[in-house]
């Protein structure tokens, strides 16, 4: 066991969450739940962070921000998707501007579902993430950690809903209507 997981620093970014999960993430850091007892410190600088907590689904504008923060973090790093929106898009999956969960932008290691995610679930996910972090650290030390691969950049137009992309569905509806007239 290394010193890394004794005091992991985390960075939190709100992709397009409703705030519910964000305030629960912050609540974790405060006296009631207190993840600082695991040596965890919330930092604002991606270069200092080992754990990336993302809340909310990604959309057209913030996908590049999420990817940039991820790329700025140094290996070994762990990504935790907090809340059902970050896991899959949740209740907003059908919205036109939601591309889906965080895993469409960056590789995710731990999923913590819930709407809003409960602090206990976040603590559990972070502790689970520490195990992944240790594995990655060991692999990195042995020179066996493969470089992180980012998924292909999607756009809202290619977003699939019920097997049909959003743009095709809109176009098809419009065409059908013009033909009817």
């Amino acid at each position: 066991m290394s010193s890394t997981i004794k005091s992991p620093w985390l960075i939190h970014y709100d992709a397009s969450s409703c705030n519910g999960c964000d305030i629960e993430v912050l609540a974790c850091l405060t006296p009631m739940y207190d993840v600082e007892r695991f040596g965890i410190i919330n930092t604002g600088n991606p270069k200092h962070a080992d754990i990336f907590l993302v809340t909310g689904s990604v959309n057209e504008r913030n996908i590049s921000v999420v990817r940039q923060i991820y790329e700025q973090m140094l290996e070994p790093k762990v990504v935790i998707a907090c809340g059902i929106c970050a896991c899959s898009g949740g209740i907003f999956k059908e919205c036109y501007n939601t591309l889906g969960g965080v895993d469409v932008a960056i590789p995710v290691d731990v999923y913590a579902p819930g709407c809003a995610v409960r602090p206990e679930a976040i603590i559990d996910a972070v502790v689970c993430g520490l195990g992944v972090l240790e594995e990655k650290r060991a692999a990195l030390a042995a020179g066996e950690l493969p470089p992180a691969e980012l998924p292909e950049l999607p756009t809202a137009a290619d977003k699939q809903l019920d097997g049909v992309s959003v743009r095709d569905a809109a176009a098809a509806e419009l065409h059908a209507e013009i033909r009817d007239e």
Partner: protein
Amino acid sequence: MTQTETATEYEYSQTAKPQVFIDTELSELRSKVEEYHERGWRYVNICGTALPDGQVELIYSFSDGLPLENLRVVVDTTTEVQSISDIFPNSFFFENETHDLFGVQFAGISIDFDGEFYTVSVPTPMNPRSSQAVAAVAEGAGSVGAEAGAEAGAAGDTKRGGRK
């Protein structure tokens, strides 16, 4: 309620929330907004609603404490609507939003984001029949058009029962 005269006589009861909607022509809009400004009213909201034919119904809301009045204007997405951000500066927010989501053309917005307010890759997502969306579909018609018939059924859930 369609007349201004009746609207000002509207009895604002303390228990019911005021519901005043005044039909307005686009040409009269600015003078009416200026009138509210002179009376010391506060700008509340601009709300677009897509109509079935691709037009947009704009609702401008103004308030003075309890009284709340809404101007209703129907505009085409090809005609320019004069911005009211020189009268009420905070209207720039929703004018930009209405431009991005509904395709309404506003002229003279104080801070004009020029379509970059929200990043949306489907043009005018809230108003799929706006002229911009139709033009975008016409451009990419070759690839999509052939499958349109087959997919129309699957996409049918967006068609709404209330439109007659």
